[in-house]
């Protein structure tokens, strides 16, 4: 069995959900899209991965999943697994407990696959009102996300801001493996140079400068 805590302390939203899930009747599944892995990250494999995580967190495998597995053995060739079949199995789990689904880098998914996946996620939240979906991705897919998932979508713009960049650089400098090479002057120069570049890297902006934008 895979526990929610197996995800470890390594991310913001997932950590928060894990902390609370330990105490309550909550399920969670996560997925990271990666352009380099676009061929294997098909809708069936992606949705199957989410389902696999939810099933792993249960005491036993639901009858609907066992039956589907046995039925596919009769199919000649392939896994006999389809999106529609996965969604049916989803319904047997997400309707019984509060479920969080987190998906990263949706923009790195092949557009044809993304259409199917967004429609599938839309169907999941429609059929299970206790299911919540957390998505990240580049801004250019915002309209597509809103169109496919409807009025229930809230959007937040993530931007790097100076105070967060400073905090990030300080943390990295603290972990410097060659401290004998570092001086306060060099440290100041590094900080100044990076901030001058106005880099759009590293970290999200602070709460105080949050620019939120909701669709509803």
């Amino acid at each position, binding site marked *: 069995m895979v526990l929610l805590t*197996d995800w*470890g302390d390594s*991310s*913001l*939203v997932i950590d928060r959900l894990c902390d609370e899930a330990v105490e309550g009747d909550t399920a969670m599944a*996560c997925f*990271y899209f990666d352009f380099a892995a676009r061929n*294997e*990250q098909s809708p*069936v494999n*992606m949705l199957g*991965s989410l*389902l*696999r*995580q939810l*099933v792993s967190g249960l005491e*036993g*495998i*639901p*009858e609907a*999943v*066992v039956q589907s*597995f046995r039925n596919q053995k009769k199919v000649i060739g392939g896994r006999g697994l389809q999106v529609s079949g996965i969604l049916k199995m989803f319904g047997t789990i997400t309707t019984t407990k509060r479920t969080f689904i987190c998906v*990263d*880098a949706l923009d790195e998914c092949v557009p044809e696959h993304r259409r199917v996946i967004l429609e599938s996620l839309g169907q999941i939240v429609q059929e299970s*009102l*206790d*299911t*919540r979906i*957390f*998505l*990240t*991705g*580049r*801004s250019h*897919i*915002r309209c597509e*996300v809103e169109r496919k998932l409807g*009025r*229930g*979508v*809230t959007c*937040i713009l993530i*931007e*790097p801001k100076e105070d*967060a960049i400073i*905090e*990030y650089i300080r*943390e*990295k400098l603290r972990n410097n493996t060659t401290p004998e090479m570092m001086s306060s002057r060099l440290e100041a120069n590094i900080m100044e140079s990076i901030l001058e570049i106005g880099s*759009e*890297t*590293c*970290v*999200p902006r*602070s*709460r105080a400068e*949050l620019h939120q934008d*909701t669709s*509803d």
Partner: protein
Amino acid sequence: MVNRKALDYDTFSPAFQQFPEIALTDPELTTTLFPTTFTAVKIEKMLQALSNNQNSFNIGYTVNYITPDDESKILAWLSPLEPRVRHRDIGAHRVDSIGGWLLETQEFRRWHNGNRGDEANHSTLFCHGNPGAGKSYIM
């Protein structure tokens, strides 16, 4: 639902009494027929024996027993992908204190705490931005 924790002697004793041959095929099982509690291993062995003899004895009901090996096969069948690898990779480069503001926003709380009674049902939260803005570290 196949829940091994819920299995006990009372559930299966009628079948064992009706077909003692099932237990007699295994000396270890014979000694475990009468105690009212069994270890998980013994219960699994008895279930396996029942399952193996199900057709020949026609015991009248289905024992839907899933072995650990079956479980692994079913999970692998659902998907060959392993997202935890990417998760660990991202976590190794994240700075703990950064991004906490998101959890305090009204949008996050509304998404997180919302329920089916929520009129707008804020079921989806989409964090978007440019490449390198830190979206993956927030998740």
